[in-house]
């Protein structure tokens, strides 16, 4: 089975309910989109992420009511360096969508979505712990997996696999 090329044209993807809903709410919020390997990815502009999550959660026809996962990818040394990734699931429609926000290396901070889904609490703490991305408005942003007094953020690409010697 050959891989179908990814579709990145916003016009062609307008049929997707999640994208259509976000564009009808605020066209400036979605910077680009990608449909690759049967998965839809929407790139959200940083200031709009929390509101976009609220819009998708309360979307009546196809509510993305479940937050599956929050994680991050470090594209060091490229800039913008971080991509925070949200995986949403629609329990009534059995549909998934991936939201991504790009963050620069010198100011890796983003609004927390814990007020939208309390489930984001642990996930965001984990991203903070391992990548050093700050979530504004998080109720308890502390290290979760590493010891409290640990220095550095291990999953960053400039952090060596075997630790600093």
């Amino acid at each position, binding site marked *: 089975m050959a*891989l179908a090329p990814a579709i990145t044209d916003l016009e062609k993807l307008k049929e997707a309910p999640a994208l259509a809903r976000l564009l009808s709410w605020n066209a400036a919020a979605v910077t680009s989109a990608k449909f690759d390997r049967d998965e839809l990815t929407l790139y959200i502009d940083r200031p709009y992420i929390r509101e976009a999550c609220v819009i998708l959660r309360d979307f009546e026809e196809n509510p993305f009511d479940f937050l599956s*996962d929050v994680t991050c*990818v470090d594209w060091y040394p490229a800039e913008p360096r971080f991509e925070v990734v949200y*995986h949403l699931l629609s329990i009534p429609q059995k549909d998934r969508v991936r939201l991504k926000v790009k963050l620069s290396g010198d100011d890796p901070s983003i609004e927390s979505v814990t007020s939208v889904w309390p489930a984001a609490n642990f996930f965001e703490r984990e991203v903070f712990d391992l990548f050093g991305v700050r979530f504004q408005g998080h109720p308890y942003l502390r290290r979760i*997996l590493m010891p409290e007094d640990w220095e550095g953020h291990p999953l960053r690409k400039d952090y060596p696999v075997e630790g600093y010697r």
Partner: protein
Amino acid sequence: MAHLNPTPVLEPGQDRTMILNMGPQHPSTHGVLRLILEIDGENVVRMMPDIGYLHTGIEKTCEAKFYQQVVVLTDRIDYLCPMTNNLCYVLAVEKLLGMEIPPRAQWIRVMLNELTRINSHLVWLGTHALDIGAMSVFLYCFREREDVLRLFEAVSGQRMMTSYFRVGGLSLEPPLGFFDRVKYFTDRFPSRVDEYEELLTSNPIWVERTKGVAYMSPEDAIALGATGPTLRASGVDIDLRRDMPYSSYEKFQFKVPVSQDGDVFARYMCRVQELRESNKIVQQTLAGVPEGPIKADAPKVVLPDREKMKTQMEALIYHFKIITEGFAVPAGEVYQAVESPRGEMGYYVVSDGTAKPYRVHMRGASFANLQSLPKMCEGRLIADVVAAIGSIDIILGEIDR
């Protein structure tokens, strides 16, 4: 891990209350979970789980390994359902590669996954009952679990860390007589589940300890990210095997147990019924395992047979290249989720086109389920905390990774 920090993580809110550390060595915390409880007499006012004691940096290690080598690491995350983790990871990589898997491999994968679910639920049932005080159930459960582990040993050579699935299929053809042994097990298993139920379901002490305890509403369960039996016991009918099928699950008929009660007893009933349904799925797979190859026809990704390697030059070259350099995966990203015994197990794999994954993230079901624990326990007795921990079936290896 707040023990290194001089400031306490949780401070008492009022004069009457005190802070109690439960764990990380407490026997009923199923590993090294630390719960910080603010208690007022016997009542839990607030609760905060503290995790990270088992963190081994598996996600970071994955970035330094070839795609095939990561399969071995996935076993170690959730050590009670290694096959489910193997499956989820290889499905993600196969999706990145755009690969078709032969039906025989898919059916055997389903069969082994359901046996894994039986294995995991048996450990859960035994230890959960032990926590609450029913000692003998543990012995019965481990008797059947031993049978399942022997089946795993027969098929993969390992009892627990199986690493049996490969990107592109299976590592080996199951041994002769394996399906007969599975059949022997599945024929007897329903009567064994009757035995467990006889010990617990109508046992007045068990019912007293579990009914109405640690209630969670469906709205809370969704908002807190609970999945699997924890979510279904609160009345939300979703099972990824049925609703978003993978690995040919759509070809099998099974019921998804759902309960509206949302308490410890409901979670117990959901899982016990799942034991029976999983057994039915195994029986269906046995009835018609397709003939054919167990590996996809992709010489650049799948290791050649030993026979071919010794007679064909090209097979030997591919074998050498796959072992020394790995195989390159086209750039892209996928999120693959499967229904593990604990809920939604998800692998987010990012490839940059090289032979090593750029990023592997594991979405552990226990990690998310643990967040619902304070909701269940706050305002209840300490004794119920033990019942609640058992009922969400957490594995600390999966939480801390």
